[in-house]
């Protein structure tokens, strides 16, 4: 059975009619939809077990704590982490990257360098600019070729004794390029740099064995992997997390507090001040269990076939440019394209009138757009419920766009 045939009925939103047409949702890279299992788990939690976690000595508090901490165990299993202490629950990828950048930034000195790449999402650029600011630290960036691949020679050249942090995406949110994380991490660690990986576009689509990647930190979001908004994961190698000074204070992240000082709590709670997103953790657990039941190898295979189909069909339309690696090269579940003479927002608006939801614009990757000499693209992206028929509908609609404006 095809994966989308198996899953489609689990996603109530896919029955929606948009502008008179059955919704064709091809914007899962921005945010995926949720299966009923996730929606119901969260509703059930609120209806039966909600209380604050960790310090509530009563039945509901204990239930809520157990459910919240269960999410950590599920994440640990999903990403192959060595221990649950290495799993910090955050508010999302942006939150996780800011947490790491802020904490690492405080250890940087004038002359140090942070190395990123031209294909980063703004959330893996701006936190590093902020970390560098006022410290005499320089942010450098590795260029990307027309084929969507990172210039590995430039990476090796730019990496040096001054490089203290190397941060890059596992999968590009625009080009779909899969970066060779293990190779980049190994090189970076040779010069003693800390390696931070933005896994927002990888975790929903690829089987993960994070420790094998050789990085120090790996960050992703729940809402792109069938889970709720407002929750994400920061994985850190234990030694890397232990070396990190918390930058956000509050309840739960401390062991003992005096007026003028405090002792931090153990990992991972030292990085989780305040009341965490408890219902969202429950939803994340349900999302992970749903994905595990499907099997991530199967998910990858399904989405890869859709991406290849989209690259081939869109690429065959006159006046359409497809960005990123060629069809034969493995990519993530995104395909960016442009239609000659049409602005990406007009492409998206015209497709929306057919009930087809795609992203358009700079995709929070303005440096990448600039390096390609464009202001934006349209982007179709896929998830477990996306079908080959939907890709064909998209291609057919794109083929007739130019006659419509």
């Amino acid at each position: 059975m095809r994966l989308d045939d198996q899953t489609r009925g689990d996603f109530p939103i896919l029955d929606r009619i948009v502008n008179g047409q059955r919704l064709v949702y091809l914007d899962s890279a921005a945010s995926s939809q949720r299966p009923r299992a996730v929606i119901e788990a969260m509703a059930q939690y609120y209806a039966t077990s909600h209380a604050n976690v960790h310090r509530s000595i009563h039945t509901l508090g204990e239930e809520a704590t157990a459910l919240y901490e269960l999410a950590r165990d599920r994440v640990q299993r999903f990403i192959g982490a060595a221990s649950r202490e290495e799993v910090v629950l955050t508010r999302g990828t942006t939150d996780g990257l800011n947490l790491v950048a802020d904490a690492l930034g405080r250890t940087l000195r004038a002359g140090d360098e942070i190395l990123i790449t031209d294909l980063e999402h703004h959330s893996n650029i701006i936190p590093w600019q902020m970390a560098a600011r006022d410290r005499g630290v320089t942010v450098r960036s590795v260029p990307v070729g027309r084929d969507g691949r990172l210039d590995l020679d430039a990476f090796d050249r730019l990496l040096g004794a001054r490089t203290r942090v190397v941060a890059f995406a596992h999968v590009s949110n625009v080009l779909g390029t899969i970066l060779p994380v293990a190779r980049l991490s190994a090189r970076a660690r040779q010069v003693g740099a800390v390696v931070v990986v933005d896994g927002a576009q990888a975790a929903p689509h690829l089987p993960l064995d994070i420790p094998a990647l050789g990085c120090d930190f790996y960050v992703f979001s729940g809402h792109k992997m069938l889970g709720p908004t407002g929750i994400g994961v920061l994985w850190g190698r234990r030694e890397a997390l232990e070396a990190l000074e918390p930058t956000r204070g509050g309840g739960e992240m401390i062991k003992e507090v005096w007026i003028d000082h405090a002792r931090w709590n153990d990992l991972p709670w030292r990085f989780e001040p305040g009341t965490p997103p408890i219902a969202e953790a429950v939803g994340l657990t349900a999302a992970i269990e749903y994905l595990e039941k499907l099997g991530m190898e199967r998910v990858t295979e399904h989405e890869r076939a859709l991406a290849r189909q989209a690259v081939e069909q869109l690429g065959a339309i006159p006046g359409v440019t497809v960005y990123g690696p060629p069809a034969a090269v493995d990519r993530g579940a995104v395909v960016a394209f442009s239609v000659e003479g049409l602005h990406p927002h007009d492409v998206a608006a015209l497709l929306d009138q057919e009930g087809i939801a795609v992203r358009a614009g700079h995709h929070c990757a303005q440096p990448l757009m600039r390096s390609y000499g464009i202001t934006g693209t349209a982007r179709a992206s896929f998830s477990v419920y996306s079908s080959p028929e939907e890709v064909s509908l998209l291609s057919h609609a794109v083929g007739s766009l130019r006659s419509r404006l």
Partner: protein
Amino acid sequence: MTATPGLYSDVIRQRWRQPRFRGEVAGATATAEDVNPLCGDRVRMTLRVRDGAVEAVRFTGDSCAICSASADVTAELSEGQPAATAARLTTEDVLTVLQADVRPTRMRCVALPISVLQKALQP
């Protein structure tokens, strides 16, 4: 394929295909430029203001059909007006000419050229 209703009115299509005010004003006395942070669209306007009146307005830029059409209408509505009148141009004025059902998410596409004009007219 169904006809395109609502958002892309005939006026927007016409103005986008054949803008009347695209270009640069010769001997411009004021220039302004801005971007739409949502999409990165850029609009630049050049104006010639003499004796308190807007003699000529032209726009350039890289933008969507709605923003282009809005820039074209904004230029038309302000040209020949006293500068103070042109500075009070609103999105409603432009929308009336565009005759389009522009949704809130695209309203900034309409508003950008107007704010660029206002920036250029600031003393």
